[in-house]
Structure formats: C-alpha cells, structure tokens
C-alpha cells in the first residue's frame, strides 16, 4: 500500500491504484487447476493469495472407507507424476503398523523404482519449468527421456502413469527377465542427456537472468515456512529423509545430498539437476547389487493392524511425503488416514516468494517449487 501512495504525484492529472489480477484456475503455467490472486503495483507483485481445492476428491475420507489394500491405488492419484513413491510411502507405513519385515530384494527394487520415478518427475519438472520461462526445446528433450522411464515401468507393472506397483509387505511381482540390463542401459543414456540439458540452460544468459536472484529465501525462513525437499535444500538446509530416516534400501546406498547456497530459483534448479545424477548413481548401485530372494514378506491373510497410530515419512521427488495412519484394531479399514503432502506445504511459501517480483517471475517461481495439484488438493 505504501509503495502505491508514494508514487502518486500530488496535483498531477493521473493517479495510481493497485490492480487485482486473477491467474488461473485455467492457466497453462499453474500446472493444473491452481488459482493465484495477484495484487499488482504496475508489474510488481505486492501480494498474492493462493486459492485451491478445485481438484479435491476427498482421498483421505475415501481411504477411511476402503480396506488397506484398496488404498494403494488411491495413493497413485495424489502425486500422479510420481505414483510409485506414493505407493512405497503408504505400504511402508502399513508395514510399520503391522511390524512386518520386507525382504531385501523387494527393498532394493523399491529403491530402483523410487529413483527412476524421481528422474521421471524431475524430467517433467525441468521440461515444464523451462517452457514456462520460454525454453521450448528442453521440454521436448526431457519428455523424450521420461518416455524411456515410462517404458521401463510399463514392462514392470503394465501401467505408464498410475502404477499401483506396490503391495503391503513387498511387490506384486518380480521384475521381468532382462529388465535390470535395460535399466543400466537407460542409466548410460540418461547420464549423457543430463549434460545436454545443462548445456542448454546452466550457462544460458536468458536462463540466468530469469532465475538468478528470483525468490531468495534463507535456510531458517524456508524451514519455518514449511518448504521441504529440493526447495528446502536449495536454501542450504541439509534435510533429506533418505539420509536422515532411511527407508527401503537407502541405508545401503552411497549418495550425496546436493545443497544450494543462495536459496534462489537458480539454486533450486541446480539442486534438482544434481539429484538427477545422484539418482542415477543409486540406480546403478541397486541394480548391480540386486540380491536374490523372495519379494514378499510374511503378510497376514487378513490385514488388520493392532490398534495404534504412526507417522512415517519418505522423500518423494517434491519433498517429505508423510502418512499418519490410525488403526482401531477392529475393522479392516484405517480409522484415520492422513497424508502430509509436500506440494501443499511447498505451495504455502509461494506468496512469500513472489512478493516484490514481476508478474513474469510468478510462473518461474511456481515452476521452481514444483507442485502437483493432485497432491495439493487430494
């Protein structure tokens, strides 16, 4: 408000006032049905309000009325560009409630699938983020490689987007013969392609102008406002669920957690680019060291965990994906099913990030926090 009043010239013929601009819910760069109400002073954003809920399907309520196995395919529908990680998070939470051990082979395959999924999700992020800023080519390149991952998933479980690829206690089926060779082949292809993306963007003058110094947030503030995943690590906070609270086979993997320094859009971009490489490193380790053995643990025929509650978090491509599940020990469905969606918590930082920037930067910042509306609204 103050900024506007200061610009009003006393006695002049013209006057200035704030403009309210509605962005979305049908806007191509909001990545779904997100509505942002911007208050503008000229081209500068004074304040932003996020309106959501257009995709609310009541997944939590639905899950409380389905049995434990049926919920797995509902988790697919939250973060639909990274369905396998949602499956893993849910199954591990139920396994924790049931206190069952998952065989080592199943944990390794879960790790491979999670990391393939992370690369696929980051490919989609990179393509759309770059296209929002104006680099069309990267979109085509990134989707070309994402297709290879979808082919691998199709061979494993028959689906390309919503996989339903986990079962409580392990996996629905073993990987097909020769699949691991194809995964290694993909790793070799992908390693070159990441360099290709970086030649297009990392030192590109337009890219630097559009991302450097945009949406700077310090580590302490990012943690307080609830940013998680690559967006938090871009501000230099070493928080990665895979390292801090290892699940699947991450305790046996060797990998680094890339950290940013400046906490701007460019650093968040660099963190994700490095995560591509670390994911490839983990896929190679897990595929080469894939142990033999069973793929399903000792699961009771009727899944009915003892009364109690638990919270379990995993690192999805977007950040900390947590499940809080309460079982009453009597019925065959959860008493309370709660998802801690990383996209929702990251989106909360958007008004703070866009304040003081230009309208054109808003699309860059929405891309930089990497949201999926299916998960925000559930």
């Amino acid at each position: 408000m103050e900024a506007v009043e200061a610009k009003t010239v006393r006695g002049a013929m013209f006057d200035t006032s704030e403009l309210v601009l509605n962005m979305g819910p049908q806007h191509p760069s909001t990545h779904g049905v997100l509505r942002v109400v911007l208050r503008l002073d000229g081209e500068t954003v004074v304040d932003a309000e996020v309106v959501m809920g257009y995709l609310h399907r009541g997944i939590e309520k639905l899950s409380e009325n389905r049995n434990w196995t049926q919920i797995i395919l509902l988790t697919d529908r939250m973060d639909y560009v990274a369905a396998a990680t949602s499956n893993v998070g849910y199954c591990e939470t139920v396994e924790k409630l049931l206190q069952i051990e998952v065989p080592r082979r199943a944990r390794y395959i879960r790790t491979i699938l999670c990391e393939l999924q992370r690369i696929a999700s980051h490919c989609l992020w990179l393509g759309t983020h770059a296209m929002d800023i104006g680099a069309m080519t990267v979109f085509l390149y990134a989707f070309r490689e994402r297709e290879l991952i979808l082919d691998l998933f199709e061979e494993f479980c028959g689906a390309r987007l919503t996989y339903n690829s986990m079962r409580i206690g392990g996996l629905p089926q073993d990987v097909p013969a020769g699949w691991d060779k194809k995964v290694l082949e993909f790793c070799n292809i992908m390693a070159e392609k990441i360099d290709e993306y970086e030649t297009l963007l990392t030192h590109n003058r337009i890219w630097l102008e559009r991302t450097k110094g945009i949406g700077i947030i310090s580590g302490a503030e990012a943690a307080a406002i609830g940013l998680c995943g690559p967006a938090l690590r871009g501000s230099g906070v070493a928080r990665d669920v895979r390292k801090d609270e290892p699940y699947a086979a991450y305790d046996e993997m060797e990998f680094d957690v890339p950290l940013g320094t400046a906490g701007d859009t460019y650093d968040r971009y660099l963190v994700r680019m490095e995560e591509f490489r670390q994911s490839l490193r983990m896929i190679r380790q897990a595929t080469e060291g894939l142990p033999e053995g069973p793929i399903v643990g000792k699961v009771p025929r009727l899944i009915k965990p003892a009364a109690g509650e638990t919270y379990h978090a995993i690192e999805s491509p977007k950040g900390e994906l947590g499940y809080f599940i309460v079982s009453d020990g009597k019925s065959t469905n959860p008493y309370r099913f709660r998802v801690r969606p990383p996209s929702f918590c990251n989106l909360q930082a958007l008004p703070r990030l866009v304040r003081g920037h230009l309208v054109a930067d808003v699309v860059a910042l929405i891309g930089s926090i990497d949201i999926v509306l299916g998960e925000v609204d559930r």
Partner: protein
Amino acid sequence: MAEEHVPKAAVPTGPPDPPPAADAAIPAFITSLQAEVPGAVARISFYLGDWTVIVPVSHVLQAVTRLRDAPDAAFDLCSDVTATDWPPRAEGRFDVIYCLYSTRHRHRVRVKVIVAEDQPIPSVTGVWPAANWLEREVFDMFGVNFTGHPDRRRILMPDDWQGYPQRKDYPLEGPGELLMENPIDWLKLRQSREQADIE
C-alpha cells in the same frame, strides 16, 4: 458390494497411546520439558519407535515454544498438523496432532492435544509459520476451533460449505446431482437404500 459385508465394529473411544516400558530411556527433551514447564506433559506414549507427548490445551503454546527454542529439543520443522475424531470420548472428541522434526538432532516427536468440539485451542502459526495452512485444513475438515490464527478460512472446500467432511458423523456420500435435478427420484433411491440396509 464388498463394503456391505464388513461387520459393523463397535465405535472406538480413543487411541490406546501405550505408555513407554518402565525401563525405557525417555529422551532428554521430554524430561526437561516436564521439569521446566510444570503441567505441560499430561502423559507420554511410545509406540513403534515414535514418542508422543500429550499436552493439555492450557499449555500448548508454552510447550511448543519450549520444544522449538530449547537447545536439546530444537524442533525447527513442523512437519504436519492433523487431527483425529473420536466422537464418543468423554474428555473431548478431537486429537490435534503436531508432527515435529529437528534438523539439528534429527529426532522426531508428536505433540497431541485433546480438545472438545468448539473448545478453543491456540494456533501455533506464530511459532511455525508452516502451521498456517495445515491448521486451516484441520479447521476445514474437522471444525477445530483455532484461536489467534491469522487467516482462519476454509482451504480445500468451498467457502460456503456446510459441515466438516472428515468428522466421523459426516456421510461418505452426499445427495449429489440427482437431488438438484430430480428430488423425488433421489428420495426413492434413499428409501430403497435404507430398505436394503435393514434387510
């Protein structure tokens, strides 16, 4: 359908919240919280490797501020705020649960507060700004009465929505479009469903 064959279980009256074993080592941040803020810890629970501290409503702000600021606790991330509905429970139907994480010590704790319907509970948005939307969602879904919240509105449901969807007494299925288009058919459908339930 499969759901109809599920036997109707008795309505549970609350989570078990098992106390820790007598010889279990209680983390230092819980014992120091008990010592420094008298009355802040009503009960302690330990289940499947997770510690839960049950805090009375009157001490919520004091307890969470201590948990954030004390060097032995340092819970700088508020991972999640959620609630559970236990309608028949005498001491209050809602559990409001805060999942906290410390990036310095890499430990977790859950803070649980029991509140009755309409009973005010102070918002922790001033302690962790991250709780803002999470509390809005709890308000939207359960109708928990947060006080001192900077922006207490519905977040996922439309602003003019009636009722709180995640409550246990809220129906899974609403009247839908049929009620709008043809109320008589809707009434017939409802009656036939009720008939099927009785049979």
